[in-house]
C-alpha cells in the first residue's frame, strides 16, 4: 500500500500557500550548488523549472528527447492562458478562477492545489511579460483579454492563435540564458528510459542517446519529470507524434502511483478524421467558439446539403439551445458529448457523418472579414491547408478529438510523487484539473509548477538530503536499471515479426477510442482489457523493428513507446471500469441523467484513484486519496 499523504498545509484555504512558503525548509545558498537536479522534458513546466532552479543556484541537468527544447509540444497550444488579473474589471478574482477550475474539473481536483494555481496565475503573466512574450495588446498599450470556455469573465491572455508557442519560447529563452551561463547542462536527443531508485529515493535516470543508441546513467539528488501527457495512447490525437508516456510509465513501474489515468479530455473543436492513413488530428482553438456558432441541421435529410443553402430556421444551434447561459462557451467535455449526441442522432455532417459546423457568417457580418482575420487568421489558414476549404465562405467542420490527459503521476502538495525525490510537473502529474480541464488552464499550470511552485517546494525535500550524498552511477541500482533497458531493446529488435509498430499503435488507438473514449460502458471496458492483453502478447511476438540498437533508429524509439502505451491503455480501462460514476471527461453510460448529463457519485467516488504497480502480469493496486471540500460545495455541475 503506497503512502498517499497529500501534505496539504493546515489553515484556511486562502492562507495555505503563503503559510506553507513561510514554513518550508530552505537550502542555504552555498549548499544549493552541491545539489544536482535532473529535469526531464523542456516544455512549459520543464523549461521554467530548469531555469528557475538554476537561477536559485542548484546544478541542473535538462534532458529532452527533441533536438531542441523549443520543440516541446507546449508550442502547439493555441488559445491562451488564464490569470485572475481582473484587468477587464469584470469581477474576476483568485476565488473565481479557483471556483471555475474546481467546478470545471467536476469536483475531482484537490482544493488546495487549485487555489494555489489561481493565486500564482497573476505572477505568471508578470513573468512572461518581463521576458518579452508579445501578448496581444489594446491601442493604449495595455494587455488584451478574451473569454474562454467554462468561464463568464474575460481572463484569458493570448498571442494571436500561438499563445503556447510564445510562452514556450519565453521559457526556452530563460532556459537558453541559463545554459549559456553554464548553470544548466542541456542534453538533447536523449530519451529517459528508466528511473533509478536507490534506498527508496529517486536518484537518477537512464537515458538512451537517440543518435548513437548508447545508454547513459545520470545521478542526481532529485529528479523532476515534466514530460507531458499520454493522449497518444489513442494513436489519433492533437498531440505531437513524439509525445509519449514512457518517462512517467517507467517511473510508475518503479513505484510511483498513477493518479486517475482514465481522465482524458476530448476537445470539441478539431478537424474531423479523413482517412485511415491519418497520423494526427488538428485542433482548432477553442477561442473560435467566442465568435463562431456551432450547429447541425435540424433535419437528417439536410445533412448532405451545402450548409450555406440551409436557412437559419432549419439549423439547430445545439449548444445555445441546451446550455443557454454558456452557449457556445460550454466546457469542453460538455460540448464534446453534445456534438457526439447530435452525430449519434444522425445529424452529423461531412463525408463521414462525424462532424458539426462551426460557423463564422454571423461574426463576419458583425466584425467584417478583416476583423475575423485579425483574431483568428492563422487558424483559418491551418483549416484551409488541411481541408482545402475556405472557412470565410463556408462553415468549418469540426469533431471532438483527444487533446489532453488530466490523469498523471500522483503528487502531493509539494508536487512530489510517493517516491521521495521524484517530482512531477505540468500535464505529467494529475493534480489540478480534476476530471476535466478548462481551456487556457494547461499553460497556466505548466508555468505555475515550473516558475512558482517547484522552486519553493523542492527545498523541502533537498534540505533533508545531505549535500554531496547522491549515489555514484556505479551503484547497483544504476547497473540494474541499465541492464533492464538493454534487455528490453534486445527483445524488441529480436522479435523480427511481420507487422510494423504503427500497426499496433493504430489497433490500440481504435480499441481505446471505441471503449475508453467519449463514452464508456462496463461491457466495453471489460472487453477492451481482454483485447489489449491479447494485443500486447501479439505485439511482443510479431512486431518488426529493423535496424540496430547502436544507431539512430526511429522504429526502435516508436516500439518502446508503443509497448508502454499498450500497458497504460490497459490501466486506463481498469481505472474507467472501477470508477462507477460519470464525472468530467469520464462518461460511463450506466451513470447519466435522463438528459444525458454526467451523474457523479460523491458518496463513493469523491476520491483520487492512485494505481500502484505490483509486478509484470499482476493486477495493479488501487489506492485512494479522499477529496475534502471545505471552500466549495459539491453540486451538480450545470451550465444551463
Amino acid at each position, binding site marked *: 500500500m503506497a503512502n498517499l499523504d497529500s501534505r496539504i498545509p493546515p489553515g484556511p484555504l486562502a492562507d495555505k500557500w503563503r503559510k506553507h512558503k513561510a514554513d518550508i525548509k530552505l537550502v542555504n545558498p552555498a549548499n544549493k550548488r552541491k545539489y544536482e537536479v535532473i529535469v526531464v522534458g523542456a516544455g512549459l513546466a520543464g523549461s521554467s523549472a530548469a531555469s528557475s532552479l538554476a537561477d536559485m543556484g542548484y546544478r541542473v541537468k535538462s534532458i529532452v528527447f527533441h533536438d531542441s527544447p523549443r520543440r516541446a509540444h507546449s508550442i502547439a497550444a493555441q488559445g491562451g492562458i488564464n490569470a485572475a488579473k481582473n484587468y477587464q474589471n469584470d469581477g474576476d478574482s483568485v476565488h473565481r478562477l479557483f471556483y471555475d477550475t474546481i467546478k470545471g474539473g467536476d469536483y475531482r481536483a484537490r482544493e488546495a492545489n487549485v487555489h494555489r494555481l489561481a493565486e500564482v496565475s497573476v505572477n505568471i503573466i508578470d513573468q512572461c511579460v518581463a*521576458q518579452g512574450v508579445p501578448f496581444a495588446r489594446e491601442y493604449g498599450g495595455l494587455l488584451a483579454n478574451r473569454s474562454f470556455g467554462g468561464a463568464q469573465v474575460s481572463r484569458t491572455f493570448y498571442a494571436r492563435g500561438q499563445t503556447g*508557442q510564445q510562452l514556450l519560447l519565453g521559457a526556452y529563452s*530563460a532556459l537558453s540564458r541559463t545554459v549559456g551561463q553554464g548553470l544548466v547542462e542541456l542534453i538533447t536527443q536523449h530519451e529517459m528510459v528508466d528511473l533509478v531508485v536507490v534506498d527508496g529515493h529517486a536518484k537518477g535516470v537512464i537515458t538512451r542517446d537517440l543518435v548513437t543508441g548508447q545508454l547513459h546513467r545520470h545521478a542526481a539528488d532529485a529528479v523532476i519529470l515534466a514530460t507531458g501527457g499520454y493522449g497518444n495512447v489513442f494513436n489519433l490525437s492533437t498531440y505531437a*507524434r513524439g509525445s509519449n508516456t514512457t518517462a512517467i510509465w517507467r517511473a510508475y513501474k518503479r513505484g510511483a502511483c498513477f493518479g486517475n489515468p482514465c481522465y482524458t479530455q476530448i476537445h470539441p473543436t478539431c478537424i474531423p478524421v479523413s482517412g485511415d492513413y491519418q497520423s494526427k488530428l488538428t485542433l482548432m482553438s477553442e477561442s473560435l467558439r467566442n465568435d463562431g456558432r456551432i450547429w447541425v441541421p435540424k433535419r437528417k435529410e439536410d445533412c448532405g446539403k451545402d450548409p450555406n443553402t440551409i436557412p437559419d430556421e432549419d439549423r439547430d444551434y445545439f449548444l445555445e439551445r441546451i446550455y443557454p447561459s454558456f452557449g457556445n462557451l460550454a466546457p469542453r467535455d460538455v460540448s464534446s458529448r453534445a456534438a457526439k449526441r447530435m452525430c449519434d442522432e444522425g445529424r452529423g455532417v461531412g463525408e463521414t457523418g462525424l462532424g458539426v459546423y462551426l460557423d463564422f457568417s454571423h461574426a463576419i457580418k458583425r466584425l467584417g472579414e478583416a476583423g475575423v482575420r485579425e483574431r483568428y487568421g492563422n487558424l483559418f489558414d491551418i483549416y484551409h491547408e488541411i481541408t482545402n476549404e475556405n472557412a470565410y465562405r463556408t462553415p468549418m467542420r469540426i469533431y471532438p478529438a483527444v487533446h489532453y490527459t488530466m490523469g498523471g503521476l500522483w503528487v502531493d502538495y509539494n508536487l512530489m510523487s510517493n517516491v521521495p525525490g521524484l517530482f512531477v510537473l505540468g500535464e505529467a502529474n494529475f493534480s489540478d484539473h480534476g476530471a476535466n480541464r478548462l481551456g487556457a488552464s494547461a499553460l497556466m499550470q505548466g508555468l505555475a509548477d515550473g516558475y512558482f511552485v517547484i522552486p519553493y517546494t523542492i527545498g523541502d525535500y533537498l534540505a533533508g538530503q545531505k549535500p554531496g550524498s547522491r549515489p555514484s552511477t556505479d551503484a547497483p541500482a544504476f547497473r540494474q536499471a541499465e541492464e533492464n533497458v538493454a534487455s528490453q531493446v534486445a527483445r524488441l529488435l529480436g522479435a523480427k515479426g511481420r507487422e510494423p509498430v504503427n500497426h499496433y499503435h493504430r489497433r490500440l488507438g481504435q480499441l481505446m477510442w471505441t471503449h475508453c473514449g467519449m463514452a464508456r460502458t462496463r461491457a466495453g471496458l471489460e472487453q477492451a482489457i481482454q483485447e489489449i492483453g491479447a494485443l500486447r502478447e501479439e505485439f511482443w511476438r510479431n512486431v518488426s523493428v529493423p535496424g540496430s540498437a547502436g544507431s539512430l533508429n526511429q522504429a526502435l524509439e516508436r516500439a518502446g513507446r508503443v509497448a508502454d502505451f499498450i500497458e497504460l491503455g490497459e490501466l486506463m480501462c481498469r481505472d474507467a471500469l472501477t470508477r462507477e460514476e460519470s464525472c468530467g471527461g469520464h462518461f460511463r453510460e450506466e451513470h447519466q441523467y435522463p438528459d444525458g448529463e454526467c451523474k457523479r457519485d460523491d458518496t463513493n467516488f469523491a476520491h483520487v484513484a492512485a494505481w500502484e504497480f505490483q509486478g509484470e502480469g499482476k493486477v495493479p493496486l488501487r489506492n485512494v486519496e479522499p477529496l475534502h471540500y471545505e471552500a466549495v460545495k459539491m453540486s451538480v455541475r450545470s451550465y444551463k
Partner: protein
Amino acid sequence: MVASTSSKLISVTLRVWRQEGPAAEGRFVEYKAANLNPNMSLLEMLDVVNDDLERRGEDPIAFAHDCREGICGTCSLMIDGKPHGPHRGVASCQTYMRSFEDGAVITLEPFRARPFPVQKDLICDRSAFDRIQQAGGFITARAGSACDANAIPVPKGAADLAMDAAQCIGCGACVAACKNSSAMLFVAAKVSHLGLLPQGQAERDRRVLGMVSTMDEAGFGNCSNQYECSAACPKLISHDFIARMNRDYLAASVRSVFQAESQAAGGGA
C-alpha cells in the same frame, strides 16, 4: 474510421536521400508509393512507405517530424529542391499529396548547410540555432522579480510587429534556402522581437553582438540580399528584420567602442 472516397487516388515515385550516419556516404534511393489519397500529408505518405519497409524488415527512412501542424519546427525536408516544398508559408508537415500530379517523381533531401550536418537520411543537426539563442536570445528576468504586467504599456504597433518576428519556428528553412547558408533571418527575427519591446532595451546591444558573433562562429554565411529566406520561411517572416538587425548591430558595435565602462570592482558590505 472511413477512408475518403471522393478523391481519385494517385501514385508517385520518391527519390529519397539515404545516408546511414554523419560520416557515411549518401545516395538517392527510389521508392514507389501507390494508391495515395490526395488529402494525405506528405509525411503521412512517408509513414505508409516506412510501414512497408518495416514490414519487410528493412530500415525505414529517417525523417524529423513532431507536431505535424506547422508550429514545432522539427520537420525539415527539401522537397524537389525547395525547403518545405512547393507552397508558400507552410512547413513540410503541411504539404499534402494533392500538391503533386499522379505519376510525379518527388525528390526528398535533408536541409543542406555546413552548420547543419546530416545525422541520418533526412535528419540534420540544427543545434547551432540553440547555441545562437544561448548567446543572447533572451531578456534576463528571474522568476519572482517581475513587476506588474500592465506597468509597462507597449504600443500595439510595436507589440504586433514583435509578434510578427517572434513567430519564427526555428526550422532552418531560411538557411537551407540561402546559397550562402546564412542564418540572418533566424537571428534577425529574435533580435527584432526582443529589441522592439521596452523590456528588451537593457540587453539590446549585448544581444545583437552576442548572437551575431555566435552565428558567424557556427559557420553560417552572410546575407547577399536575395531574400530566398523570406520566400521559404513557413511563417513568411519579412527580410525587413534583417535590415533592422544590421542597424542594431552597427549601432551596438559603435557604442561598444565608445561607451564608458565603470571601473569599479564588485563586492561591498
